[in-house]
């Protein structure tokens, strides 16, 4: 358990940081593009395909953030009505939530792969730079796969907490 836990944690962390890097790269790219656009008189110009690069970066970043958010229990829940029922009922609810989420993560990953195959087959490309769209899907699939893995892991984590082997069921994590 603990080796898997460490592995999952490391991988989710690495992906989240990679997504952050993409976000910072998007920021820098946008700044360069704005600067270029305002210096048209000096022979410069905006970065070509700036918007579509931001779009691809954004998809990659957000798919990379999902596993980390799930691992850190970042999703919003309404705790008010189950809180009086005690820790066991709440851990049970968390287990059910994580099970369903694993199903949803599986569906997202499965459909994303099919979407990838579609984009690849039809050879769709981005508007200005002509980047094949399947590349964006492939980058996103990395995060989606990890989202599935982390969700499955959180089911195991919930089970362990339900059996009382770990006592951090009420820890809301580091939500911002």
């Amino acid at each position: 358990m603990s080796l898997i836990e460490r592995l999952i944690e490391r991988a989710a962390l690495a992906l989240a940081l990679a997504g952050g890097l993409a976000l910072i790269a998007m920021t820098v790219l946008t700044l360069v593009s704005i600067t270029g656009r305002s210096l048209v008189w000096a022979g410069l110009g905006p970065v070509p395909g700036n918007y579509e690069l931001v779009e691809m970066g954004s998809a990659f970043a957000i798919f990379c953030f999902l596993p980390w958010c799930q691992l850190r229990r970042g999703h919003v829940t309404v705790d008010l009505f189950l809180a009086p029922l005690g820790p066991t009922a709440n851990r049970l609810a968390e287990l059910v939530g994580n099970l369903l989420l694993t199903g949803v993560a599986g569906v997202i990953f499965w459909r994303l792969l099919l979407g990838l195959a579609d984009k690849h087959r039809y050879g769709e490309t981005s508007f200005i730079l002509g980047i094949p769209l399947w590349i964006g899907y492939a980058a996103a699939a990395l995060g989606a796969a990890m989202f599935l893995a982390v969700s499955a892991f959180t089911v195991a984590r919930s089970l362990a907490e339900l059996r009382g082997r770990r006592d951090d069921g009420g820890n809301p994590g580091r939500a911002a």
Partner: protein
Amino acid sequence: MSGIALGLLSFPVLIALIFLRLPIGLAMFLVGGFGVWIVTGSPRAILSQLKSVPYDTFSSYSLSIIPLFLLMGQFATRGGMSRALFDAAASWLGHRRGGVAMASVGACGAFGAICGSSLATAATMGQVALPELKRFGYSGALATGSLAAGGTLGILIPPSVILVIYAILTEQNIAKLFIAAFVPGALAAAGYMTAIAIYVRIFPGSAGRREPSPTSERVAALARVWPVLAIFLAVIGGIYAGWFTPTEGAAVGAAGTGLVAWLNGGLGWKGLREAVLATAVSTGMIFFILLGAALFNSFLAFSQLPQEAARLVGESGLSPWLVLVAILLCYLVFGCVMDSLSMILLTIPVFFPIVMALDFGLTPEQTALWFGIIVLIVVEVGLITPPVGMNLFVINAMSDGVPIGQTYRGALPFIASDVVRVTLLVVFPGITLFLVEALY
């Protein structure tokens, strides 16, 4: 069962799932997905949608403004700007009765100009202001109430994540919405300060005295907050003037705030890493809800409930004002248990067409802007209404032993001030709209 009946049924089911502690995005995803399946009679439509909907939602250019604003907010919370803002506000306001609490509210409002999130604003200013409020003898109720309420200014004063989402849902101009939010936001800060002034006169024991600062100190303190003003003007001014798109504006803001934070020594490698990871959690949370909402809205569109509801209300002959008040009361009730983003995503697809079908004597665009600002305020009231006001929890947890009951009590004057303000904004749409009219 007809689509409309299914649409109507979906709301109690969704709410039941949410109350059973399912993550809100997950509940919307499930109800929306199965809803489309049932309405269309086969899983084919929803499965083929799912090939592209997640990627399209996450790669939307207009939505990419959200992680950038969240990153900007994270930089702002680490940049030492909260301390400078609080010192400046306290040097100008602190000597008045209840002045340190007023300064906390003022500093929250100013911080809201570079941070689009209420929780982050409340938490960041709380770190700086709570110890000061305690030092000057402010009661736990007043101290925590002021900061929880002040935090809501973070989302009221542009940039605002919720307003961006409203703009995208309703296809309105983000810059105009930001400008429309400006006067109501300033009014909110003034209203909160008035609430404090009245409160300390009724309960004189709840606030201590602070010596006035000399003028030289005031000027010096004010001079230290210029980066905040510069960033705010660059972002909002640049978007307004058309120098860049809102998303580009968010990138400019993130870069500027990051630079200031780095110069202030608050953003080394460790700080940057933490800022990115915190952004990852809140971005993941928001986009998972956005994805669920995309499915749920696609189901609602299939069910034709929004169009039908708008038609029925339009033909019912009910007074538009009555309908509006009923909608706002809905938000106040739900705000007691739900977070603002989920509420907006759940309700706007149904309420917005209804409101747009009513005649308030305004143009459609005016109605959309005005309604957006009012909704933004009523959902924010939810952050400081017991029993589930997130800002109350966050500030209370930071306050070192103030009982939650006192925090609840401390929030009451501010809730009252919110109710007065919402009433004013509803009765006089001009308060919200005149700045937009003047600038466009």
